[in-house]
């Protein structure tokens, strides 16, 4: 198994706050890593750093076996990694869906004809072909998210970085998104607060806390209720005690 990303001692400042402060992380090929943490913990910043949108102050980032530090290093990385933004409106800028999905393949050097064929095939594969000729800003929020994902998948990325992929989706679109993502072979890093989605998708979890990454566990306790927990491995199980206290009183 080869390592896709290896981060050592990454320090990253955003404004006045140091969001990453000596973060270490390894992402292995084929795994689906859940990245959890509180609001503002720096999860999105970490994803952005993986594709070179944020420049660390210190530390070492190795992508696909090669150290990556400047824009030139990250260009070949971006060929192989797709980042799904939180707000699909930031990602869909072409007039129609088909054109937006063809944008990536065109940039990969395909001829316009081939790029449109790739776009159509991708939309077909995802069951979104009925949206092909729709105007992007007239799509619903859920459709926009799915089309933004199609725009990434048309580039056949080996790695997907998903920033809150199920956030603000209705039940139908959320189920659609989960089913779609679950069916992909790509290595993934998934940022989400959707614990059920993470339980279904992720093979491993890390928690971002105080600028560092710690291994975490996603599990249920046999409390009769399907309460799902994600926390660091060294945390004590205080929530169990709390729950016991509440149910016991």
């Amino acid at each position, binding site marked *: 198994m080869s390592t896709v990303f290896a981060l050592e001692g990454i320090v990253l400042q955003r404004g006045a706050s140091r969001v990453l402060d000596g973060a270490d992380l390894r992402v292995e090929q084929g795994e689906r890593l859940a990245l959890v943490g509180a609001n503002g913990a720096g999860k999105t910043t970490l994803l952005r750093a993986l594709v070179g949108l944020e420049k660390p102050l210190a530390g070492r980032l190795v992508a696909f076996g090669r150290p990556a530090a400047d824009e030139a290093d990250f*260009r070949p990385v971006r060929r192989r990694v*797709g980042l799904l*933004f939180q707000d699909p409106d*930031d990602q869909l800028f072409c*007039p129609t869906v088909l054109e937006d999905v063809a944008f990536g393949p065109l*940039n990969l050097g395909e001829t316009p*004809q081939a790029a*449109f064929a790739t776009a159509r095939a991708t939309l077909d594969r995802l069951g979104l072909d009925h949206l092909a000729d729709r105007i992007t800003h007239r799509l619903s929020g859920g459709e926009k998210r799915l089309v933004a994902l199609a725009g990434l998948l048309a580039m056949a990325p080996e790695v997907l970085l998903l920033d809150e992929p199920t956030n603000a989706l209705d039940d139908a679109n959320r189920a659609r998104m989960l089913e779609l993502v679950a069916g992909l072979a790509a290595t993934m890093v998934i940022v989400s607060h959707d614990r059920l989605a993470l339980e279904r998708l992720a093979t491993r979890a890390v928690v971002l806390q105080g600028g560092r990454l710690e291994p975490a566990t996603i599990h249920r306790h046999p409390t009769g209720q399907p309460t799902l927990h994600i926390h660091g491995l060294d945390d004590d199980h205080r929530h169990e005690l709390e729950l016991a206290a509440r149910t016991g009183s």
Partner: protein
Amino acid sequence: MSRDHLASLDPRTRLLGAFALVLAVLSVDGPAAGLLAVAASFALALAAGWRPAALARRLVHVEGIMAALFLVLPFTTPGTALFHLGPLAATSDGLLLAFGLMLRVTASALIVLALLATVEPVRLGQALARLRAPMRLVQLLLLVLRYGALLRAELRRMREAARARGFRGGLSIHALRSFGWLAGMTLVRALERAERVEEGMRLRLWQGALPVAAPGRLGRVDAGFAMGVLAALLAALAGGRS
């Protein structure tokens, strides 16, 4: 041509047709020809599905500008004086000139409303790209259409949020300061949005080329319409010569 026919016109036909028809209208001379042009354009707008009331509302803006012509041209065009206003003489030639201009501008506006305002603006942008208009300008137009709508929606949401908390507007210091914040926040958000869009493009390896989907086929309706436009153009030119 029926309404369905007009609705099925390719955006490229609409653009070229509107351009040719406006040229035809601008080349006619005299009030009679002008009135004829207005009548024909009005008929075209009705055929395109405009209701007269909605059309009138749109035209009010145009005629507002035209009113300025009626105030200025009679006094600045040399010719036979109709009446005097202090040292200024209003001429019938000037009045006639203003009237002729108003008719031509009105007819042009009707043509644009009939052919261009009845189609999704994005489609016109795509049509411009397919007609090999300068790509940078087309991109500018398409991005303005794409993100203009988003910015308007953001501004509207912020105004609604302000109103939901009892904001009334007006001219008090508080209201003016709030408007300033609203405008400032819209600009800040637009700037941040622009940065994120650019990042998204970079992540998808943007190198300057943008996809333009293959155009649909031009059909018999487009051919028929083109013939009609050609006839109108010839008639206008012939009328202008005689």
